[in-house]
């Protein structure tokens, strides 16, 4: 009896399973395949807007996502904002575009410049996201000049930025004034960095050294750093939470907003000093864009505009612990945030043009220096 049920169950569910696995693609090429981004007279501000992002935007202690959803829906009562967190990040959509599968999102919230480079390397120039009609995004004028991400196809707008810097323990080491200082005996076995192959701060720090020493000199600098005992761990979490917080080393590549957390969590502030070698920090602006095949175009434009409004900018900055993208006269931040979030005197960043065609080679040459020997 039981056996019969078992056999029946196996056979039956196999058939049902196969039947349930067949789906039919929706209409050809989505509904808005064209390039008509002119502002309509009566924008359609009704419906479900799907916004793809990364996890900490919706899933950490006090993340910005829930606030954005609530405030956006209050502003546009006929709209629903649905967050989605793709497990492969933007790669998911690049893959789907390649396979001609449905793109289930309208907006991508949280792109770096190197994501744009990867899109264009894989899908051809100007792929995946649509060229924005900035006239439809009134607040885009408020974005600080430095945060232009340099896309020749005008697909993204920055909504915030972080600065990569050094975080150090002042009871063990002094602030390094320059990059060359890091090669001194005082900083032997002191620095923790991240693997630039797949860590954002790790990649930013590598690019920063390329900016300082040039394409031809950066590998020499890193060889010297290695001789002085730099350690390159997997990712920010491993290096910071794992190693730095357990006092393995007195200095780590991290974000210039570190003290905001140190203050919030009552950490010993002397272990959370911010260092800007060469008086610089590497700016890592985070951008947003609209998918070419978005189905809620008007709402998507409304969302981009909304994300740059004063209230949203203040909340994104404080909850995401990054700096706002708009100039300071357009945003009010808590004095406490201003006190603990440090901006470097000068910011460095590579735009789209500098990275296109170079980034992969730079990172791979760098990684080959360290691995496999």
């Amino acid at each position, binding site marked *: 009896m039981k056996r019969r049920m078992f056999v029946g169950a196996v056979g039956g569910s*196999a058939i049902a399973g196969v039947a349930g696995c067949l789906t039919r693609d929706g209409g050809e090429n989505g509904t808005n395949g064209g390039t008509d981004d002119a502002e309509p007279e009566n924008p359609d501000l009704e419906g479900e807007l799907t916004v793809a992002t990364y996890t900490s935007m*919706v899933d950490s202690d006090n993340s910005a996502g829930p606030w954005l959803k609530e405030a956006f829906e209050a502003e546009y009562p006929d709209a629903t904002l649905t967050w989605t967190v793709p497990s492969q990040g933007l790669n998911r959509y690049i893959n789907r575009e390649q396979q001609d599968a449905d793109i289930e999102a309208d907006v991508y919230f949280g792109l770096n410049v190197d994501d744009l480079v990867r899109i264009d390397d894989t899908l051809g120039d100007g792929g995946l996201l649509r060229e924005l009609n900035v006239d439809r995004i009134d607040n885009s004028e408020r974005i600080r000049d430095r945060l232009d991400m340099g896309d020749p196809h005008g697909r993204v707008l920055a909504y915030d930025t972080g600065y990569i810097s050094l975080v150090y323990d002042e009871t063990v080491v002094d602030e390094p004034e320059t990059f060359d200082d890091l090669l001194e005996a005082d900083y032997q076995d002191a620095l923790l960095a991240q693997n630039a192959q797949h860590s954002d701060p790790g990649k930013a720090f590598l690019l920063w050294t390329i900016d300082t020493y040039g394409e031809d000199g950066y590998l020499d600098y890193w060889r010297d750093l290695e001789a002085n005992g730099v350690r390159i*761990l997997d990712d920010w979490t*491993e290096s910071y939470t794992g190693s730095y917080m357990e006092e393995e*080393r007195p200095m780590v590549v991290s974000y210039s907003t570190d003290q905001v*957390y140190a203050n919030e969590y009552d950490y010993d502030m002397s272990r959370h000093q911010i260092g800007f070698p060469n008086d610089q920090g590497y700016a890592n602006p985070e951008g947003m864009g609209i998918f070419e095949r978005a189905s809620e175009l008007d709402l998507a434009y409304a969302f981009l505009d909304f994300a740059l409004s004063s209230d949203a900018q203040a909340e994104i900055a404080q909850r995401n612990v990054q700096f706002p993208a708009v100039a300071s006269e357009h945003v009010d931040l808590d004095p406490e945030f201003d006190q603990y979030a440090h901006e470097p005197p000068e910011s460095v960043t590579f735009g789209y043009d500098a990275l296109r065609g170079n980034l992969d080679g730079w990172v791979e040459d760098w990684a080959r220096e*360290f691995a*496999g020997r």
Partner: protein
Amino acid sequence: MARSRAFERWSRVRAGATAARDRLEHHALWLTALATAAVLAVMLYLPVGVVFAHAILDEGRLTLSQFADVLTDPFYVGVLADLFAEPLAVREHVVDVVGWLAAVSVSISVETPIPGLDVPVPWLRVVAPDVRTGLFGFTAYQAALSTVASVLLGLPAAYVLANYEFRGRKTLRSLTILPFVLPGIMVAVGFYAMFGRAGTLNELLGIVGFGPYSFIEANPLAIVIVAHAFYNAPLVARITVAAWESVDVRTVETARSLGASPRRAFRDVVVPQLLPAVLTGALLTFIFTFMTFPIVLALGGLQLATVEVWIYDRVRQLAYGEAATLAALETLLSLGLTYAYLRYESAQTGLARATSAPSRQPLFPDLQTALSPRRLAIIGYGLVALVVFAGPMGSLVVGSLTDGSGLTLRHFAFLLERQFEGESYQTLPVVAIRNSLLFGVATLVVALPMGVVVSTVTVRAGRGGKIVDTLAMVPLAVSGVVFGIGLLQGLVFGIPLPGGWRFQVTGAVAIVAAHAVAAYPFVTRNVSPLLSNLDPALVESARALGASRYRALVDVELPLVASGIVAGAAFAFAISIGEFSSTVILTGGGDTYTMPVAVERYLGRRSGPAIAMGAVLLFVTAASFVVVDRVGGRFER
């Protein structure tokens, strides 16, 4: 009249149904085998094939150029690159090897190899010119060291658990599998919390006036190897305990009665019965540590990168061709090893094992026995195990209860708050726990028949069976990163069919199938050795007495291999609970996330909530393993 015709038809139908049922039962084994093959084809060979096609296809044309590129790149294969580049220049290669050998010198000196301890030891010093091993060479080297460490740490545990009786033995035996379910990031955080300069171990040493030592900084490779042992020694222990408990004690008694000393009887009778299990554990450890990725980078850094690190990087860059080529080479290596091992395993046929298990001695019956050298050695081992296994896990739990300023419950408060006030698109702890347990049980239900069927089919198929068996081990030999991409491209996006249709597999069913595919090799590897040792006469007499092949399996063979099945079941459950890479892909943005996925999602700028979720993962899994083992133990004998 009409009524009798109806009755006639009814009885015909009934007879037909009975015949059909008999036939079905007759063929049940083959039907299950077919279902297994179908699951494997869809969930394993299709995705893996989709990825590996990238390795041999270039714009639709077959090519081996990508393999040639990798094999002639010294970065990947070190000195072997020359060999692959010019395989026919034998003379040159011989000259190279002779030149290298001539440059090797060996001398004996006195050194103090133990850091911190000034103990002089005679030391054999070998000076040899550097050989560039390349990424593959280094990966194999660290995997070999990790395997040795795992076996050395795992065997004493197996010895104690199989031979001694003490309070909590069963619970401890259940918990040996716990490290297996921890996500890599949690192990890394646990290791830093245990062995870091400010970690638990240094705090303990500080109490007695030592330290602090930089254990991790002093030798990252050593700490990576210990971390690999943390994962894999329990695996070795568990497989070996299962074999040890099914050693036929009568064979030992026979040897003793024939005059063998206890040591001799152990060496000649027990060891050969344990060896296949130990080697299975070693083989699995080698394959796992060969494909390691998060642990080496998290604890060792880029300097200890493995092949898998490069595969992951290529996948992130969407350079599937190179990723697939590296992965194919990795898989070929592991499958080659597996095949060699399976040939060995099949050569180890012995007698049917009856179930007269060895009796256990009490561990500490009295103080005098407790001070005997053997007991002291066990205590010493227990201390080491405490540091290596309990330490990192305990430090995790402590980490979930503290923050920079001292004891706190805020991380757990976060979980509660999230559960009760969280939005639907956020990750809710209870949903993760529920999914993990549900998928774990479902995986058991699917993977056990799959594993047993693969064992039965292959054990009986002779040499061809070894090849089938090797192919059935593919889930272990394929890199998790590659399998994930294959699932994504092959199943989640779907295979386009004519007429605008797509063949797609997603959601809970896909997750359970993927877990079952990852888990059944453990059932097979635990069952096969027992099954191949069964006396075929037992099955033959059952068949001669009229039992169907299926009935013989269920009534005769399964009870005799029950200990292997229970061991496999625990692994299947553990694999399902701990599986991350394919779960996270098949979950997508939906609500089929599991506990390890939740841990990953809570890792924001501050990791307190993630560590608290990790502690919940530890607790829930520990509780369920005790249950799995207690329930399983009833069927064992």
